[in-house]
């Protein structure tokens, strides 16, 4: 039970090369194809949001399982726990957006002539925007750190009081996260189209986060099992993870449709512009988004057999990850960049370097501790879990 993941030198080198290649590729694309500064800043924001979403979704995964006294996930809880270590890095990367504010958010440099923006000024102004940004991250980092710290104390001492304390922080995190995930999605994504609003938007972004983190957990398990780790994660655990991925992909589609149907039906010009722009100028992206995030996981995981096969689940998870990247793309790009937005070398290289950094940080954190918390009170239940 003291199995340790070793972050070998080859892995480090491969990931470092991936990061460097990504950075060189995006710099090359910036210098040679002159994509326009709004495209650069928007794709930085997109990747920040995408990878931060995966990290936050896994913190939510941990918190919700702990507060529900769940036992099945204990053998795999190190994986989401390591995924949350990206959040402090995401904080630094999100601060970068300060330099691109006027390129992405048109409210940040309004001349005072726009009545709608004037009405929203109490919320949408640059000092308050960054104050909120710091507050969100401070709360997330603190609560997640406390959960993790108590996990480590529990592992080292076996004292159950740390387990209870960890559960308390999980509850606090859920309350804080429920509010801040909505507010942060208004700030960072919805305010790109500052004239437009949707009351379900926070939920929509939140479910995207949870689905991407589930998909990433499945992919990491697939990888770690391939290199010979985590033998005690059996088909029963994989089954539950794929069921969650399946269910929340359907829930994502439900929220997507709830947003679409009401705007389509009420036909208020101020709201319909959002979908009009996406359906006219981003037609392929608009439908690919639905296909990858709903149709693929729905038909890919509907059978019991495919839910219980890690290979199939990992394949579907990879499609879902791409799908949610595209989902963020269609949320951010039409407003921030407009018709000149496209998925070119810049976007792909930048995503590759972000992914390399993200995986590097996860592996670093995974290697720092044993892969299973041997003193967790639910470990026995998890090892003998049947689904």
């Amino acid at each position, binding site marked *: 039970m003291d199995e340790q993941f070793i972050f070998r030198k080859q892995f480090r080198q491969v990931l470092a090369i991936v990061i460097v290649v990504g950075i060189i590729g995006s710099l090359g694309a910036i210098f040679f194809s002159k994509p326009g500064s709004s495209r650069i800043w928007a794709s930085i924001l997109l990747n920040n949001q995408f990878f931060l979403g995966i990290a936050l979704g896994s913190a939510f995964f941990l918190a919700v399982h702990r507060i529900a006294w769940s036992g099945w996930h204990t053998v795999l809880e190190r994986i989401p726990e390591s995924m949350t270590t990206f959040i402090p890095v995401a904080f630094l990367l999100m601060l970068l957006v300060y330099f691109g504010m006027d390129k992405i958010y048109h409210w940040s440099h309004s001349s005072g002539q726009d009545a709608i923006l004037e009405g929203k000024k109490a919320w949408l102004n640059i000092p308050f925007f960054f104050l909120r940004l710091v507050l969100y991250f401070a709360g997330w980092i603190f609560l997640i750190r406390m959960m993790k710290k108590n996990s480590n104390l529990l592992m080292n001492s076996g004292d159950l009081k740390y387990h209870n304390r960890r559960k308390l922080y999980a509850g606090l995190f859920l309350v804080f996260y429920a509010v801040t995930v909505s507010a942060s999605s208004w700030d960072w994504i919805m305010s790109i189209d500052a004239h437009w609003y949707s009351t379900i938007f926070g939920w929509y972004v939140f479910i995207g986060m949870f689905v991407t983190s589930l998909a990433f957990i499945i992919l990491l398990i697939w990888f770690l099992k391939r290199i010979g780790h985590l033998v005690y994660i059996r088909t029963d655990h994989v089954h539950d993870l794929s069921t969650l991925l399946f269910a929340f992909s359907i829930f994502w589609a439900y929220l997507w*449709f709830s947003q*679409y*149907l009401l705007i*389509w*039906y009420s*036909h208020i010009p101020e709201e319909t512009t959002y979908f009009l722009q996406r359906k006219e100028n981003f037609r392929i992206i608009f439908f690919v988004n639905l296909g990858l995030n709903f149709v693929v996981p729905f038909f890919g995981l*509907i059978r*019991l057999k495919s839910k219980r096969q890690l290979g199939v689940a990992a394949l579907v998870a990879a499609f879902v990850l791409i799908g949610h990247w595209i989902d963020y793309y269609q949320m951010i790009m039409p407003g921030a960049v407009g018709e000149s937005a496209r998925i070119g070398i810049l976007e792909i290289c930048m995503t590759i370097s972000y992914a390399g950094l993200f995986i590097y940080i996860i592996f670093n954190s995974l290697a720092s501790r044993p892969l299973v918390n041997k003193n967790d009170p639910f470990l026995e239940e998890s090892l003998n879990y*049947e689904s």
Partner: protein
Amino acid sequence: MENINYISVSFDDEIPLLEAVGKLKESNEKILDVLTPFPVHGLDRALSMKRSRIPLIGFIFGAFGAIVGFGFQTWVFTINYPLVFGGKPFFSAPSFIPITFECTVLFAALGMVSAMLIKSKLKPDSKFIPFDENITNDKFIILISAEDVESARNRIKLTLSGINIIAIK
């Protein structure tokens, strides 16, 4: 099933029950049914039962319901009684989706429940056979079919020796 010869073995707990099922399977006894007050994990595996086909029935009925729901609305709003709602075209698919979804759920649920009732012989006119007075109680019961009840009872007693049994009838 009324004139069947059977033996019922009752238990207090699920652990001796699972153990007994394993032993009876090993000695090739024919288990008719196992009756428990709550679902027991691993019981269907111990009985080596085939996987239920209820999900497939659910899928078929659900797909049927989706087609019926969508098709009926399309027929009503384009052919039978076309009306303009909110300036939308007669055939406006997004507005049909919620009802299509409800029809899918309704058909799948009713289909699965009725298939289950028919398959487990719980039709309204079916007769209740009281195999054992404890089957609606808090006891766990295995029913074993036997040609010659007396000899089978002794045989099973021998097979299950060492397991905590309440009664063999």
